[in-house]
């Protein structure tokens, strides 16, 4: 089972991007369909608060969704997360698992914990969505947190670039490139429109490389 951990600050567009990534993974999984009734892709939603909404959006698209609410999996529920992922692997054994973290989660912690506690997993990669429209606002107000989310991501999706003019976009891309790890990928996207398939291909390729590199 290969895992994507999808993070990014509240309102950055994680769920919108997740739906496109899910459609791509579902499509490539169907290519090797074994005829089993089990889902080839499972989505694990972690939401703050008792009543989540994103899981209903994703279920409405026909995906198999598991939910963890109330607490943030990077700080309060890591043990529960491990149990959930183990259960998903044992009972459903999908090809792919996407974990959508809360908007205040430290994606790196989740990725590293899965790598350490579950070495039997395939690739585990952290994809962080950055909000282009609010990049400067968030960097001004919660810089340590936002930098922490972005610095160690395996891939960054700079979302909502349609809301910037070309000069602003170039400026924010430059700031992001100065911050991110040289090994990470960065894509500039508008998630409310279809994202080019090469983006998803690159993410999957990187995930496979991480699996091959081992822990």
């Amino acid at each position: 089972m290969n895992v994507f951990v999808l993070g990014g600050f509240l309102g950055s567009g994680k769920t919108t991007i997740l739906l496109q990534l899910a459609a791509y993974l579902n499509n490539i999984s169907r290519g090797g369909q074994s005829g089993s009734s089990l889902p080839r892709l499972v989505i694990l939603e972690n939401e703050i608060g008792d009543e989540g909404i994103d899981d209903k959006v994703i279920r409405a698209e026909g995906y198999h969704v598991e939910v963890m609410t109330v607490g943030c999996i990077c700080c309060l529920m890591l043990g529960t997360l491990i149990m959930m992922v183990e259960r998903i692997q044992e009972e459903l054994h999908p090809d792919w698992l996407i974990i959508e973290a809360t908007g205040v989660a430290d994606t790196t912690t989740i990725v590293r914990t899965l790598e350490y506690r579950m070495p039997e997993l395939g690739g585990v990669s952290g994809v962080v969505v950055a909000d282009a429209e609010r990049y400067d606002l968030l960097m001004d107000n919660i810089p340590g947190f936002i930098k922490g989310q972005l610095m160690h991501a395996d891939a960054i999706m700079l979302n909502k670039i349609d809301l910037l003019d070309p000069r602003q976009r170039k400026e924010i891309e430059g700031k992001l490139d100065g911050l991110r790890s040289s090994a990470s990928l960065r894509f500039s996207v508008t998630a409310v429109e279809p994202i080019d398939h090469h983006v998803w291909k690159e993410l999957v390729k990187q995930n496979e490389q991480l699996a091959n590199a081992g822990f």
Partner: protein
Amino acid sequence: MQDSENHAYQSLRDFIHVDPNRHKEALPSAFSKKAVVHLKEGVDGLELERQITAAVVQVQTWVAAQGGIVGHIKTLLDGPESLWVSTTGTAPSIRRTRRPEHPGDICFYFTAIAVHVDYEAFCAAAEEAYQQCLAACFIVPAEPAGGALSDV
């Protein structure tokens, strides 16, 4: 490893130290409620949209006045015709979907998350907007399913 220890967790892959203060910087205040509802007589789709959007904007405006940052405010009226109203602090986004096969009760979900605001005051402001919206549009059975305040 204990759950509470992870912020100091170091990976074997590249020994990243996770700064325990980072999360505190963006500690969210979260309000999350759900009610099973019936539409009030005479409340049509436009009025629903107007009232729910007004509630969302009310919370958004309160957060801005406190100098806070809206994480997101999301509402969902989940029924055969679903209505989504959400914002991240800018103009609310409104979306409708038709789900004629929708099986059960109509539910109204209201979640709001903000950072750099007082938790108790934020929840009170969100509760007020939520209750005003409920009163304007819906009849709520005596025993609403679920509904609780939460903080992380």
